[in-house]
């Protein structure tokens, strides 16, 4: 993967963008964090934030007009948060923190005037270890006495109600605190009679940099013999390379003085280090936030100014702080178990995935996370910028398999299942019985549905044959989607090629896909074929005669692979309405539907998280779930929730109320059911006897596996056929170990990349009672293996044009 791919994805996620207020603040104050602490009454902690961001914090906190209020998103609900009130209260009710300046650098700057900009700049420079000298012609901070009640935060024309000004007493205290702090930081003060061009020339000679604090009324361009000053908005540079001047905005004189101090400090610091003051200043500019914030479920809570504006109470300030929206974009997190699991936004995951890919040596920590993504597309739908982590995970998986870094165990079972489903012993494709070899349509039944609901597929196929002209073929095979999810382009290509040949042999019919994953996969991988959804086809046909509704309301769950397939979603709803089935829509439906955990083979790589995906849907209510993907049905059943497939209602095997109690189908049962489906369909519809279909080898061992043991086997993904193979081998070659006391035996076999162990006993009737079975991948000497089974069976499927 190219780094540019990562950058393109990362760019989409705006989660780490500063909130609107921060983008509007000249000091980039973390207002959300400040509000958090203030709301909790932790004013001393909140003070530390002020100290970190504000130049001359004691004064700035009392004078800032709060330009953040112009951008505060709360204005869209009621009124902006009164941040100036918070700042003043925090400053009034906490002590200034100790400043630990950097070691002295020996660089010196002269700051003219004792306005807020000069005091702030002195503070900023001193923190960086530089020597600042304030040169003043009037008493220090004398300008404060000139402030009237209309100055400061109270007077500014903002969207919200004006904040109350700081009291004269508070301002005097703030000045004293500021001067004390500056003295403790060894800022020098020089009193002069008056400013003049000669004095300026002298200072420019004496110091490495000179700043003109134009917010002090005694400092003016005219007095210094300069033309009108218009300093650079980023560097505060004015006229000459080592001369800087405050840039004041009459609407927000104090905020602009603070801004001038911060920016001039950055410039002087660069100048002292021999760097161009304009270098790397992008992050200091005021910005319009790109952070998308969802205000839809926010409470309206208008501003309640303090009863006595001169003496706000802590509770009033805490309540105001609590009005802060804590703007953040984490909207993709709540409905995704993966994003939630590590409380990280997609940008962080993308970075981790990328680092994982480029790791040449060492542990690849993100393997599990990459393989735990259901690739369901929900985050991409929720994100205002369309960041789809699944797309990134898919690219990551491709890279991992290409570099042979994909953990073998992650998808091995699913891929083996694909190979088994498409083996000549299982898969088949046939034209309509009694019709031409070529068909107009092909019912693509997939590999899971015919095993999980064989009667429904049989009924469905008969229905289509009856109502559609031109012949309807039937294909029972895996489409190859799991290979795509596993990042195996080779296997995907071979699978699709085999299907393509079988499809072409049937006259390239229109594909009617029963499974939404198959449908989206065909549309992507076989664009030359016309692929349609079963549901839109069924909608146009009469309701089957035996269809039955469940006499109880259900929750309709759309499969994630059909989240963008609105015609199918509508068709399913229309069919259910025609059937009289009562159902309701859950909170996350249609485009925003949830994944059951099967998607992207998330459950295969991470069963615990896979279960979390399925459990999410249960939060919608206690009603049974109605689904139209059979994997969803079985995965919800696995959580204990009664679930029916829409085909369970259209072609019921038993009354739907009874089908609610059906358990999920196990892995071994599904394998067995595939063989049964094939055998029965070929015999009943095409009159093919078992002789014409490939024979399974005759088994001599009879198995007895108690239910609890079977459950363990399922969770360990050990099939009964695996157990049988071990015991068949033991019957021929003897068990590996025996226990004379208990009469039990142990046998092991390594039929593929896995060694299976079975502990069993032979009952008097000859059947093997299985007590336990387990497996491992490590090779241990002395374990008998069987030749690696060739996955080339698909080739046979294709060679015979689908008729296998």
């Amino acid at each position, binding site marked *: 993967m190219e780094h540019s791919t990562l950058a393109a994805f990362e760019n989409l996620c705006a989660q780490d963008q500063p909130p609107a207020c921060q983008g509007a603040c000249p000091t980039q104050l973390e207002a959300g964090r400040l509000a958090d602490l203030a709301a909790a009454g932790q004013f001393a902690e909140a003070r530390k934030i002020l100290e970190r961001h504000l130049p001359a914090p004691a004064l700035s906190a009392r004078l800032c007009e709060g330009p953040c209020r112009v951008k505060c998103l709360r204005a869209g609900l009621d009124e902006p948060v009164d941040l100036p009130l918070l700042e003043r209260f925090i400053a009034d009710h906490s002590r200034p923190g100790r400043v630990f300046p950097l070691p002295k650098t020996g660089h010196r700057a002269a700051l003219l005037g004792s306005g807020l900009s000069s005091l702030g700049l002195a503070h900023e420079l001193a923190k960086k270890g530089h020597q600042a000298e304030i040169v003043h012609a009037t008493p220090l901070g004398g300008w404060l006495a000139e402030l009237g009640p209309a100055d400061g935060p109270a007077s500014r024309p903002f969207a919200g109600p004006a904040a109350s000004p700081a009291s004269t007493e508070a301002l005097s205290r703030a000045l004293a605190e500021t001067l004390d702090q500056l003295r403790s930081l060894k800022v020098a003060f020089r009193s002069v009679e008056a400013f003049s061009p000669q004095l300026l020339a002298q200072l420019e000679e004496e110091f490495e940099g000179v700043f003109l604090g134009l917010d002090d009324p005694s400092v003016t361009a005219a007095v210094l013999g300069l033309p009108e000053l218009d300093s650079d908005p980023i560097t505060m540079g004015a006229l000459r390379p080592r001369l800087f001047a405050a840039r004041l905005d009459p609407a927000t004189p104090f905020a602009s003085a603070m801004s001038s101090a911060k920016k001039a400090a950055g410039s002087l610091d660069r100048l002292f280090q021999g760097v161009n003051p304009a270098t790397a200043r992008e992050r200091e500019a005021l910005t319009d936030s790109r952070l998308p914030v969802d205000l839809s479920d926010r409470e309206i809570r208008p501003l309640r100014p303090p009863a006595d504006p001169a003496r706000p109470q802590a509770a009033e300030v805490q309540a105001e702080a609590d009005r802060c929206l804590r703007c953040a974009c984490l909207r993709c997190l709540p409905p995704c178990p993966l994003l939630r699991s590590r409380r990280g936004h997609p940008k962080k995951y993308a970075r981790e995935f990328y680092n994982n890919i480029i790791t040449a040596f060492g*542990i690849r920590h993100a393997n599990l996370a990459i393989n735990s993504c259901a690739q369901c597309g929900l985050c991409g739908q929720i994100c205002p910028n369309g960041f789809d982590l699944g797309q990134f995970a898919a690219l990551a998986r491709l890279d991992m398999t290409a570099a042979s870094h994909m953990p073998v165990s992650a998808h091995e079972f699913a891929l083996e299942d694909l190979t088994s489903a498409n083996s000549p012993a299982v898969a088949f494709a046939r034209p309509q019985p009694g019709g031409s070899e070529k068909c107009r349509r092909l019912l693509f039944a997939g590999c899971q549905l015919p095993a999980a609901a064989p009667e429904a597929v049989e009924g469905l196929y008969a229905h289509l044959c009856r109502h559609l002209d031109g012949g309807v073929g039937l294909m029972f095979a895996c489409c190859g989607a799991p290979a795509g999810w596993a990042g195996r382009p080779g296997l995907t290509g071979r699978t699709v090629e085999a299907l393509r040949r079988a499809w072409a042999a049937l006259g390239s019919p229109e594909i009617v896909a029963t499974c939404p994953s198959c449908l989206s996969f065909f549309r992507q991988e076989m664009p030359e074929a016309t692929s349609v959804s079963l549901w839109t086809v069924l909608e146009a046909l009469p309701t089957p005669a035996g269809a039955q509704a469940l006499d109880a309301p259900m929750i309709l769950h759309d499969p994630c692979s059909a989240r963008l397939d609105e015609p199918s979603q509508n068709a399913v709803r229309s069919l259910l309405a025609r059937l009289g089935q009562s159902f309701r829509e859950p909170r996350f439906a249609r485009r925003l539907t949830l994944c059951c955990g099967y998607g992207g083979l998330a459950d295969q790589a991470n069963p615990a998280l896979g279960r979390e995906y399925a459990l999410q849907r249960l939060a919608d209510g206690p009603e049974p779930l109605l689904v139209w993907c059979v994997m969803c049905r079985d995965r919800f059943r696995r959580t204990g929730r009664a679930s029916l497939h829409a085909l369970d209602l259209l072609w019921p095997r038993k009354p739907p109320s009874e089908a609610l109690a059906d358990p999920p189908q196990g892995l071994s049962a599904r394998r067995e059911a595939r063989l049964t489906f094939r055998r029965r369909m070929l015999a009943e519809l095409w009159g093919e006897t078992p002789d014409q279909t490939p024979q399974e080898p005759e088994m001599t061992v009879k198995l007895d596996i108690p239910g609890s043991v079977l459950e363990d086997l399922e969770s*360990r993904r050990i099939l009964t056929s695996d157990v049988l193979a071990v015991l068949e081998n033991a019957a021929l070659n003897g068990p590996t*170990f025996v226990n004379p006391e*208990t009469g039990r035996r*142990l046998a092991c076999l390594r039929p593929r990349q896995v060694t299976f*162990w079975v502990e069993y006993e032979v009952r008097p009737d000859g059947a093997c009672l299985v007590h336990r079975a387990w497996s491992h991948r490590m*090779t241990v000497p002395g374990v008998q293996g069987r030749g690696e089974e060739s996955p080339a069976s698909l080739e046979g499927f294709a060679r015979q044009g689908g008729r296998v």
Partner: protein
Amino acid sequence: MAHVFVRPGGEGWVCPKCSRPLGPVSVNVEYMGASFMVELPGCQSCGKVLVDDELALGKMLEVEKLLEDK
């Protein structure tokens, strides 16, 4: 070479070919191109070893996952 893991056990089990109870056997196990010595219960005559479920689903699985992520 030190054993990466040592697994006691195998009590009661007998190798049917050699008719010997199991004792500790050092073997070389392999996965993903990595190989290391372990001590497992096994037949000290023919060298066949026993990997019990606790080992297979515990320590051994842990090492397998580690090697897969390496």
